């Protein structure tokens, strides 16, 4: 999400923090980090009690448990943040175990001020934090050893969880843990010279790799508690609907059904919850509900109609995001020297492989929640609100998530609210709410549908002399807590990001946006606005290059301004690494390129594409990345390889959510189909620009570049331009 910079600017959150330590009963050392400021720079908040083992726990057997202050859902942070801490701590990596931290103030993102994953900010925001935590822990262990040996700390060195003294003494961290717990936490400790990193910058396999390959890892959906019940919910077929009549006689008569009742759901609608002993019972009971839905007066979205409406609106200027220079060239130039292009993008569902779920047990004066959540702070508050508790009475466990891509970061916490309402009724019983795949595909919170209209006057030099750009589509942040920060001059920044802040030098540039209200809940989808803006920008720049009879890489270099220097670096690296295969393309193949910067990371890619069975076949992709210092290059490579496939979700033929008369027309993976192995690139080679700069994220930046690169290759093969996604017909 593009939330990062904005929140940090407005919150003025201090990054100062201090550590507190305590000894454990078992003789271990516990290091806690306390932030001295909380969200939005409120005046000194009263001291709070945090879980004692906040970040590091050195066990007496030498095991080191490191808490990860955010959700792991594939992006690899559950390995890379422990690497950062363990490196500064000189911990024995083979003994490090990572745990996902529960919801607590101490685990809030140091920049966002809430506990969350988003905006590709995990490493970017917590790199320094985890380095300092590791260095302070190490310093305390060294101090304990030097006290014991009566030597100066500087005379000691550390390696693999052992302190070595000047006279050949040595002591394991485990043996020093209890003494170290009594040492005062140092305020400032020197961090390693990057030259001395032992883990940071080294290919490191995931800590959760084995457990995800032998079936032992428990995801949120795998939770099993004594006496637990399962809840499914029948949602209204149009957002905001309610049961007019409900006949649940047949459903209630099924053995194993515990209760059936109405609950509030999103857009002020009412749904029907079915609670049973098992999933299959709940599913069958839900199928037997006879509900006549009241749908009158509701907005009934129809994507065919929306397409016509949006295209009409796009012909008029909207709220202004960028206005510089003038558009005279568009008035004066010959139509033959202009490009007028209309693009259309559909609603997209996230469909993480693990269906949405949350388990809640309400005990009257407190509650416990187990949720694969990207937004722990919001979700904990939402459950507390529903149950009439303060958030500190709600213990919130972060469960490992099977993907998310933004879908588990919903500002209104609607899944957790449903789970809490159900648990409230069944006080004392843990209830696991499961959204089936059908619920997920039809349940809203999609990447919005967008239309772009772009008019470009092409100058005699082949470069854009004037550029008018209108974007039409729902705001993602309207009516959320993010609105005040992200809506400027009536423009949702997440709608225009990737265009408004382009590094292409366009002197005469006008960007505006219309944000209609539609009865469809929308949300950020991995890389947010860049999903569509990069497609428009990168296919148009390619078209401009073709008109100028220029090589598309050379043309991009020429059009980029000095602020795009990282893009030039990745273009150069991609150019170099792909030169060999680009020169030796097979018959019927073409190259497509694209580059894009988002979330502080610059990416360029080249793809080798042919047409097979009227579909693009991506034989290989070469990707170059500048993400600052790559903490775990293996994760960066993996994110970019797989992110290419994720990005192709946008062009696969069934890659659209459509509406007719208010109803979603798809309901599972047969109608809304992300890429399978044959749709994905056969090979992807990833190259990282060496850098000492602060690390930036790699979760979202892989996504935007691949679709425009493939579309550009197709244009070279067919001579057509592709402006509507998904690519249903070639």
């Amino acid at each position, binding site marked *: 999400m593009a939330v990062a910079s904005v929140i940090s600017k407005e919150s003025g959150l201090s990054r100062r923090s201090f550590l507190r330590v305590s000894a454990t009963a078992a003789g271990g050392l516990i290091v806690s980090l306390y932030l001295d400021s909380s969200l939005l720079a409120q005046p000194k908040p009263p001291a709070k009690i945090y879980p004692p083992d906040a970040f590091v726990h050195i066990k007496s057997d030498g095991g080191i448990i490191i808490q990860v202050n955010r959700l792991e859902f594939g992006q690899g942070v559950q390995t890379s943040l422990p690497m950062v801490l363990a490196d500064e701590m000189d911990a024995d990596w083979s003994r490090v175990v990572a745990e996902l931290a529960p919801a607590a103030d101490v685990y809030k993102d140091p920049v966002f001020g809430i506990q969350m994953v988003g905006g590709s900010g995990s490493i970017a925001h917590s790199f320094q934090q985890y380095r300092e935590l590791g260095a302070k822990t190490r310093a305390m262990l060294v101090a304990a050893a030097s006290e014991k040996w009566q030597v100066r700390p500087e005379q000691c060195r550390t390696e693999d969880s052992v302190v070595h003294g000047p006279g050949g003494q040595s002591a394991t961290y485990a043996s020093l843990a209890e003494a170290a717990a009594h040492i005062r936490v140092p305020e400032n400790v020197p961090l390693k010279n990057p030259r001395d990193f032992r883990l940071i910058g080294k290919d490191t396999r995931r800590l959760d790799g084995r457990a995800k*390959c032998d079936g032992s890892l428990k995801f949120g959906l795998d939770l099993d508690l004594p006496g637990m019940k399962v809840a499914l919910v029948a949602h209204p077929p149009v957002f905001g609907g309610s049961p007019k009549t409900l006949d649940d006689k047949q459903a209630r008569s099924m053995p194993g059904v515990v209760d059936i009742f109405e609950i509030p759901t999103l857009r002020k609608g009412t749904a029907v919850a079915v609670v049973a002993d098992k999933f299959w019972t709940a599913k069958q009971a839900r199928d037997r509900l006879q509900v006549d839905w009241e749908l009158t007066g509701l907005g009934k979205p129809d994507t065919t109609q929306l397409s016509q409406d949006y295209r009409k609106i796009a012909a008029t200027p909207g709220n202004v995001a960028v206005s510089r220079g003038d558009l005279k060239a568009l008035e004066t130039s010959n139509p033959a020297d202009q490009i007028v292009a209309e693009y259309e993008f559909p609603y997209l569902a996230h469909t993480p492989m693990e269906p949405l779920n949350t388990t809640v047990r309400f005990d009257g004066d407190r509650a416990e929640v187990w949720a694969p959540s990207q937004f722990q702070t919001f979700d904990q508050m939402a459950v507390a609100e529903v149950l009439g508790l303060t958030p500190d009475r709600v213990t919130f466990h972060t469960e490992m998530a099977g*993907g998310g891509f933004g879908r588990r970061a919903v500002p209104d916490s609607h899944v957790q609210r449903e789970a809490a309402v159900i648990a409230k009724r069944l006080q004392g019983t843990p209830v696991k709410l499961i959204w089936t795949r059908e619920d997920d595909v039809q349940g809203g919170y999609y990447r919005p549908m967008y239309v772009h209209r772009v008019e470009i006057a092409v100058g005699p030099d082949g470069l854009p002399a004037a550029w008018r750009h209108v974007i039409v589509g729902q705001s993602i942040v309207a009516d959320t807590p993010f609105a005040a920060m992200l809506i400027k001059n009536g423009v949702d920044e997440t709608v225009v990001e990737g265009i408004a802040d382009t590094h292409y030098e366009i002197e005469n540039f006008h960007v505006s946006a219309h944000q209609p209200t539609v009865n469809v809940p929308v949300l950020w989808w991995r890389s947010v606005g860049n999903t569509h803006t990069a497609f428009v920008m990168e296919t148009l720049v390619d078209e401009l290059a073709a008109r100028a009879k220029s090589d598309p890489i050379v043309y991009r270099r020429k059009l980029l301004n000095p602020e795009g220097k990282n893009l030039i670096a990745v273009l150069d690296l991609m150019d170099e690494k792909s030169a060999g295969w680009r020169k030796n393309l097979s018959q019927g193949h073409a190259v497509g390129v694209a580059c894009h910067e988002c979330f502080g990371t610059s990416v360029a890619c080249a793809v080798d594409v042919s047409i097979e069975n009227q579909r693009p076949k991506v034989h290989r992709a070469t990707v170059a990345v500048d993400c600052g210092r790559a903490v775990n290059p293996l994760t960066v490579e993996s994110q970019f390889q797989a992110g290419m496939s994720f990005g192709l979700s946008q062009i696969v033929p069934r890659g659209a959510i459509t509406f007719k008369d208010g109803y979603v027309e798809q309901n599972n993976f047969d109608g809304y189909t992300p890429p399978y192995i044959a749709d994905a690139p056969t090979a992807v080679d990833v190259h990282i620009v060496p850098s000492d700069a602060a690390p930036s994220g790699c979760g979202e930046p892989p996504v935007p570049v691949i679709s425009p690169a493939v579309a550009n290759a197709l244009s070279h093969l067919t001579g057509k331009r592709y402006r509507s996604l998904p690519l249903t017909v070639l």
Partner: protein
Amino acid sequence: MQTYKLTVNGQSKEVNVDPSTPLLWVLREELKMTGTKYGCGISACGACTVHLAGIATRSCVVPISLVGGRPIVTIEGIGEDRAGRAVQDAWVSEDVVQCGYCQSGQIMAAVALLKSIPKPTDANIEASMGGNLCRCGTYVRIRKAIMTASQKLA
């Protein structure tokens, strides 16, 4: 409700469930073996893949009443098999997983592939693994891990 005798990973099990209950939910909720995943319930994603009498099968659409005496092998038991262990090891050494949710099914499909075609081509992989969805998109590394396991088993 009816009683069924099953052989899961070589062990005898008995469950008392509605005959329409899919094998997937018997494994997950009756036998508490949650390594086999629910992803779609319509045989479109492959996250629930198990081996039924050695054949890679979508357990989400097989009612327990149709299992009969056929032995069931799940992700929890596939490591006992030489090919299964080789595939799991290759998955770990190639660092295939991201979110990991689909990987039980991917591994079960890959083991079945290597048992029928020890030296698969790209086309064999696309045909055999073609219905196993990975939303993270780890396909490039899946291909590589299959090749690694294939070489190890040769």
